[in-house]
């Protein structure tokens, strides 16, 4: 305080300074004092005025500084001046001004920054006033709307931007002036471009809105992209919905995310069903691995092609095929997606095809012919069972091999290799049919078979050859049969010749035999001639046998059949043939053998011939085995009618028959023996044929031969033929017999024979004579008890016509037919022609006696 007081005089002194300067003229002291007093008053009033002025100014300054004015009691004038508030405040002002200056700098910078931002903003910025006049716009906005115009600030925005004459009443931005609220518009279209616009009012503190700031953002590209995206999405949706394949998206828990129309249609679900079902409703419950498969897809273990079975809402099953994959989003599995196709139809078609294939395969397999199919290169693609058997190649082995390797064809006569018909066809492109009997198929094991074949191209719908098919048959058997037929014809013609010869020969033998027998009977039992006669009789027997054999071929040599057991017959015939040989013969003839319909004489001759040949084939001795069995032949036998047969097999261990002779042994006169006639098997063959039977031969050259004969079994009741009962010795009879024969020698011999056995014989040379004599005798006291009629009378009425005439005259005529042709139909069926008995020439006394006894006395 003291220091402040000390400064006061300095102010006074300074204040007094001008007053000393105000007295340039030295006045009277009084005046001076008065003057000074006045001046002092004046000065002090001026001082206080100055002080007051200072205080006022200080107060004024303090008010500016925002504080209260100085209170006079607070500071006296001296302290006031000492304190120097003005100095303090002006110093503070300096600082305030400095600070303001700094602030102004900053503001200027900020303003520049804002301007830069304003211009470089990515959006267009427009500032307008209430009259819609442009106050400011940035570069971007200029680019947006004023590209080709020069725009002056103050021009209305509706003219320059919207291109209207007058402001629009409904202009939304105008309303912002009233509302004072920020307005946002999106997709606002100006000049075909889209803008997002934010219109913010620039609010003044008084709530008035003098201007608006509009921010334009060009979103045209964005919108266009959105549109493109939407379009592509629509396209995709369209594809998705209209796809014919079933498309599904399944969540990891099996629930369905979305499916397309095809999926719903095929599986019979409506759109509203979808949220309530899961993939497990669709996977077939029987398909246990399907559920598992879905899981493995979910766990990413599996993807790609799948084939599975779906079940529809109604329970139908559907085979589907498709692709599935997993869908990941940000590394997490969000589901599986699958596209499936209903392949039920295709599956069915495949099954149909495979069953068709199966059917074809079975058909092929059951075809009796060999079938081989090849491709266009002639490589085997298919073989059936028969072709496998015939070629010796299996389908597996032959597959893909050239047919020339599988099918070896040889020209039979030249034995050269034939060109394969498949190759020929592939060259000529024409069907080849060949049935000529000269192609041999050599199988893998080198057995050869005669075949006929045909090859056809396999042609597709476009008429292209896609392969060939070769069909072939084994015709070896057929040719054998044909050859046999040929042979039979040959035998037949020989038979005709032999028959003619045998007829005459037989008559001669009958006469010789009759006379030799008569001579024997007439001779004294001790006569030496007996020996010669018996030798003659043996020779006659052999000659008869020969003649009989010849006769077997002759026409009309039908067997006189009856039901008989072959057991005894076989045994006896074999024994007979074996006499005098050292061959052991075993029999296997079961008791239950069926009776057969045979001519016992002929069949015993068959057995005899075969056994005799066996004996001849074993000059060093050996074994014969004869067996028999019942056998039923079906429809398929080439040479035998269907029915029941007894098969007799005669097997020897002899020399066997060379292959090249096998086919010839049945030919007449074929023999390998010096003394053989070659008629044994020929007549055997003929007999078997006439019995509706069969003879077969199989021979292993060097080891032995087996002959088999098939005899037809008789089915009905077996009727015992009275002829069966043979009487061992001639017995005496009584009666008158008419004997008709063209051969006088026969008439004489027979007449003698009749006499021997108690009958009276009357001869007739031919039919008319016989009828005449019969009629005459009938009307006399001594009619004929029986007539014996020769069947064949050259140049006259034969037995057949004679009996007809006799029957007309006398229905009770007892007639016996006689002929050397034992296999003549009339001989076999004599009763049908009105005969009561049959007599085969040549006959012995006992034969004559026996037949007469039967006919006349029914014994």
């Amino acid at each position, binding site marked *: 305080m003291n220091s402040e007081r000390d400064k006061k005089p300095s102010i006074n002194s300074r204040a007094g300074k001008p007053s000393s300067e105000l007295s340039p003229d030295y006045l009277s002291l009084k005046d001076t004092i008065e003057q000074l007093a006045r001046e002092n008053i004046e000065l002090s009033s001026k001082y206080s005025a100055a002080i007051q002025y200072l205080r006022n100014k200080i107060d004024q300054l*303090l008010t500016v*500084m*925002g*504080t*209260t*004015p*100085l209170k006079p009691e*607070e*500071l006296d004038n001296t302290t006031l001046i000492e*304190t120097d*508030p003005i100095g*303090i*405040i002006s*110093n*503070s002002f300096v*600082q*305030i001004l*400095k*600070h*303001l200056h*700094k*602030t102004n700098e900053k503001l200027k910078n900020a303003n520049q920054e804002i301007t830069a931002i304003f211009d470089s903003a990515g959006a267009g910025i427009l500032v307008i006033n209430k009259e819609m006049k442009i106050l400011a716009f940035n570069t971007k906005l200029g680019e947006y709307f004023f590209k080709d115009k020069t725009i002056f600030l103050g021009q209305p925005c509706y003219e320059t931007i919207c291109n209207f004459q007058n402001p629009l009443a409904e202009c939304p931005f105008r309303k912002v002036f009233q509302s004072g609220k920020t307005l946002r518009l999106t997709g606002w279209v100006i000049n075909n471009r889209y803008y997002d616009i934010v219109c913010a009012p620039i609010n003044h503190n008084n709530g008035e809105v003098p201007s608006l700031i509009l921010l334009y953002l060009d979103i045209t590209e964005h919108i266009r992209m959105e549109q493109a995206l939407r379009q592509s999405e629509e396209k995709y949706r369209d594809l998705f919905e209209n796809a014919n394949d079933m498309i599904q998206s399944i969540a990891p828990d099996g629930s369905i995310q979305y499916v397309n129309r095809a999926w719903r249609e095929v599986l019979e679900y409506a759109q509203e069903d979808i949220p309530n079902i899961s993939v497990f409703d669709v996977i077939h419950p029987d398909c246990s691995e399907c559920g598992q498969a879905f899981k493995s897809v979910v766990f990413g273990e599996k993807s790609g092609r799948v084939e599975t079975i779906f079940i529809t809402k109604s329970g139908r099953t559907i085979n589907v095929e498709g692709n599935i994959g997993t869908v990941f989003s940000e590394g997490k599995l969000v589901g599986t997606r699958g596209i499936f196709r209903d392949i039920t139809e295709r599956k069915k078609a495949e099954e149909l095809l495979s069953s068709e294939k199966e059917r074809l395969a079975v058909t092929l397999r059951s075809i009796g012919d060999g079938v081989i199919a090849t491709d266009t290169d002639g490589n085997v693609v298919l073989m059936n069972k028969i072709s496998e058997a015939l070629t010796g190649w299996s389908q597996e082995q032959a597959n893909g091999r050239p047919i020339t390797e599988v099918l070896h064809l040889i020209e039979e006569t030249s034995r050269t290799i034939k060109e394969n018909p498949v190759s020929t066809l592939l060259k000529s492109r024409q069907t080849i049919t060949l049935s000529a009997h000269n192609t041999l198929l050599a199988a893998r094991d080198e057995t050869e078979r005669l075949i006929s074949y045909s090859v056809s191209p396999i042609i597709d719908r476009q008429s292209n050859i896609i392969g060939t098919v070769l069909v072939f048959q084994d015709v070896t058997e057929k040719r054998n049969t044909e050859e046999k037929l040929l042979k039979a014809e040959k035998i037949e013609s020989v038979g005709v010749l032999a028959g003619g010869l045998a007829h005459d020969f037989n008559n001669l033998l009958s006469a010789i035999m009759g006379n030799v027998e008569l001579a024997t009977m007439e001779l004294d039992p001790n006569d030496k001639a007996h020996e010669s006669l018996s030798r003659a009789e043996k020779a006659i027997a052999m000659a008869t046998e020969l003649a009989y054999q010849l006769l077997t071929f002759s026409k009309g040599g039908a067997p006189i059949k009856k039901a008989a057991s072959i057991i005894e017959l076989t045994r006896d015939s074999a024994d007979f043939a074996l006499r005098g040989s050292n061959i052991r013969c075993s029999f296997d003839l079961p008791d239950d053998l069926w009776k057969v319909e045979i001519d016992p004489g002929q069949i015993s001759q068959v057995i005899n011939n075969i056994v005799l040949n066996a004996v001849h084939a074993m000059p060093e001795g050996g074994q014969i085995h004869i067996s028999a069995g019942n056998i039923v032949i079906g429809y398929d036998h080439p040479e035998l009618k269907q029915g029941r047969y007894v098969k007799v097999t005669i097997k020897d261990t002899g020399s066997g028959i060379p292959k090249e002779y096998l086919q010839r042994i049945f030919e007449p006169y074929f023999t390998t023996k010096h003394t053989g006639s070659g008629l044994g098997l020929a007549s055997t063959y003929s007999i078997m044929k006439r019995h509706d039977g069969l003879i077969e031969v199989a021979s292993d050259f060097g080891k032995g031969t087996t002959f088999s004969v098939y005899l037809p079994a008789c089915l009905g009741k077996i009727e015992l033929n009275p002829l069966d009962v043979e009487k061992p010795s001639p017995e005496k009879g009584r009666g008158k017999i008419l004997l008709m024969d063209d051969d006088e020698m026969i008439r004489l011999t027979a007449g003698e024979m009749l006499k021997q056995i108690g009958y009276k014989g009357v001869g007739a040379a031919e039919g008319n004579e016989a009828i005449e004599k019969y009629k005459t005798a009938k009307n006399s006291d001594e009619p004929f008890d029986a007539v014996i009629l020769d069947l064949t009378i050259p140049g006259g009425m034969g037995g057949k016509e004679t009996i007809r005439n006799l029957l007309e005259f006398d229905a009770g005529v007892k007639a016996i037919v006689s002929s050397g042709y034992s296999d003549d139909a009339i001989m076999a069926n004599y009763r049908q022609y009105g005969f009561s008995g049959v007599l085969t020439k040549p006959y012995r006394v006992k034969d004559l006696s026996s037949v007469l006894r039967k006919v006349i006395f029914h014994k």
Partner: protein
Amino acid sequence: MNIIEFDIRGQICPSTLLTALKAINDHSRQITDGTVKLAFKTDNRDSMGTIPESAANMGYKTTVTKKEGYYLVEIGSEE
């Protein structure tokens, strides 16, 4: 950083303001530098309106803390 303390308790406005302004003027350089901070203890409530505003106009930063029986007005640079 130095803190120069002025105890102006008992003074009232405008004297307090003038004292504060004088102190600010005297140390303005150091305050702006950030080497000095001024601290005024005052019990005059009116000064709370004047000192901080004047200091702010001069570009300084003022903090006022209410203490036991007085206010502590600190004036420093604006960071």
